[in-house]
């Protein structure tokens, strides 16, 4: 077990090296660079000045040269200063990650709480009204474009409609909170209802369908028939003998959702004007902000690797046939 983890971590280093190489090449290959974009509206900037700026930002070097420089400081834990925000990349990430994570984590927990019981229910009642209603709703959820659904939510429940929830931002602009208070928490919660519901509605479908399909497969297995032949009650057949086997695949799904907890959903955050990592990454890519994009994407790469490692470990924990070696 320990050997497995150590080996996987060693392999990860090679993977990360490859990923960073490709990322850097891609980010630098954008059709335009930060200097061009930032000075585009200023006619007084001469080409010589632009060259000067590129030298300052380190954009004058070739891709391999630039990569080696970036790598040199990255291994020391320095990810540079964001060109667009003019602050250290690590500082930006650590400041905005909590919001992104909180929103995504609450949404993920809600998704699981909805998807698993409903998925099992749909599988048990396959081809009945219950099943058709659940699968249809899920289908609508999956197919609904996020921007459209966000607009609907804002229209119905936002200030323009029922006025139950604010449509934008994280906190009321007109109120000043001193330190931590219950009122502040409530304000956060009120602002997050719409984005989280949108996240859940559009995201719950895939997990639910996963559960349903898996459960159906498991319920048709021979060992389920054996359990029934032993006189196990229908409830225990489904929730003990059946679900324990469905869990194996769900666990794999869970591990791979780890990077998603931090990447945020650029579109969701944008639509509700939430200052999160996804939204910032979107702005950064519009501006070809190389240091921020590199830092952010490397974080996701690391999380992806950790996510799969956790997946594998959990996989071995729930399935006795799997031995990590």
């Amino acid at each position, binding site marked *: 077990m320990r050997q497995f983890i150590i080996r996987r971590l060693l392999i990860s280093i090679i993977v990360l090296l490859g990923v960073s190489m490709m990322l850097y090449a891609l980010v630098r290959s954008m059709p335009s660079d930060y200097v061009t974009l930032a000075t585009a509206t200023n006619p007084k900037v001469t080409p010589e000045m632009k060259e000067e700026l590129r030298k300052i930002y380190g954009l004058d070097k070739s891709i391999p040269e630039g990569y080696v420089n970036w790598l040199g400081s990255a291994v020391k834990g320095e990810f540079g200063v964001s060109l667009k925000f003019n602050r250290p990349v690590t500082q930006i990430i650590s400041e905005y990650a909590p919001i992104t994570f909180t929103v995504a984590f609450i949404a993920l927990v809600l998704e699981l709480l909805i998807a698993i019981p409903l998925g099992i229910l749909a599988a048990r009642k396959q*081809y*009945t009204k219950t099943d058709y209603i659940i699968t249809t709703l899920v289908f609508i959820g999956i197919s609904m474009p996020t921007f459209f659904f966000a607009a609907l939510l804002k229209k119905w429940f936002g200030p323009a409609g029922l006025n139950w929830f604010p449509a934008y931002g994280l906190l009321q602009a007109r109120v000043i909170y001193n330190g931590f208070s219950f009122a502040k928490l409530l304000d956060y919660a009120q602002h997050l209802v719409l984005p989280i519901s949108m996240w859940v509605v559009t995201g719950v479908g895939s997990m639910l369908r996963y559960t349903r399909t898996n459960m159906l497969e498991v319920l*048709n*297995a*021979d*060992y389920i*028939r*054996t*359990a*029934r*032949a*032993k*006189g*196990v*009650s*229908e409830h225990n057949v489904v929730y003990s*003998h059946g679900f*324990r*086997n469905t869990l*194996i695949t769900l666990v794999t799904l869970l591990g791979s959702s780890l990077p998603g907890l931090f990447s945020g959903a650029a579109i969701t955050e944008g639509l509700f004007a939430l200052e999160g990592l996804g939204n910032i990454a979107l702005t950064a890519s519009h501006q070809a902000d190389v240091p921020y994009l590199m830092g952010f994407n490397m974080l996701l790469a690391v999380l992806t690797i950790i996510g799969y490692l956790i997946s594998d470990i959990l996989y071995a924990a*729930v*399935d*006795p*046939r799997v031995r990590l070696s």
Partner: protein
Amino acid sequence: MSDKKRAGELRAVKKENLRHYRELKKKNKRKISESEYLTQMRDDNNLIEIDDLHTFFYTDVGTVHAVDGVSFDIPRGKTVGVVGESGCGKSVTSLSLMRILQEPQGQITGGQIRFNRQKTGQPLDLTKAPVKLMEAIRGGEISMIFQEPMTALNPVFTIGRQLDEVTKLHNKSITKKKDIMRRSIEMLELVGIANAMGVYKMYPHELSGGMRQRTIIAMALACDPQLIIADEPTTALDVTIQAQILDLLRNLKDKLNASIMFITHDLGVVAEMADYVVVMYAGRIVEQGTAKDIFLNPAHPYTIGLMKSRPNMLEEGERLYSIPGNVPNPINLPNYCYFRNRCEKRKDVCAGEYPCLLSLSPTHKVACHLYNGREE
């Protein structure tokens, strides 16, 4: 045009199926009073009397009459072999008996399965018994050994947990965890597993096919059942293990004074195990009798064909006999003998209605036109 017609037919089938599903749902919801399922045995020496059983599968392409009017008895302490090709309804008969058909597609649509219940002394009709009662009977009084040892055990639970479960469910006199475990280990030893303590803690994938089949048998016998249904218990095993398993079953049957319903397509095994034999073809019984009747005087051309296609009858250089043709499509079966198209002794009369069961002797019955007028 014919495509359109076909599509229309399929829609009609689907609609009809939905109606049957709804009816079943209604039936399952209803509270069943005792008077509805309590019944009387025809002969008190019988443990099971299957009487005109009909089990249909409502599939998207039509209704499959998987079991179509099957009647036979399982006497106490005897072994009844049920023989036939794949898809002839042997397994469905046993699944109907246990009431573990794949619902709502598979349904018992008619007939009775009378079970002479020792525990209460009151015979009951298994086709009508409420689900809760069936759960109490399944695994305790009637248990089943499945044909797929590789997949019939739950891969995520230890052998011990799966064995304990049966005792916990049916043997309420054992309550202490330690005693349940001791009982399970006893059962493992009984079926000839040497390292019972070790196997108890193992997962199914750590065992060989023969070991798994033994644990499945141990599971089936854990609560001293009155009836053991063995659905091709040796098909997946190699010959040496087969013999051991058969010996084991025979010994255990005598020890528990249980009856066995032995389902197989292997006539050699039946000859060794069974007191009575039922030969099925396309959902119906074509011949039934004592083992002696069937093996010494096979009457139905299908039974004779099965006997001839046994490899151990071969002389050197002789080709293995096989019955020509295949089992007919089970949807929309014709109203003449289902075996007619494959039969070597076909006569003009065979184009007529499906033959009914004729008695050749008090124990021997056959459904074939060849024996019309030869009744004793």
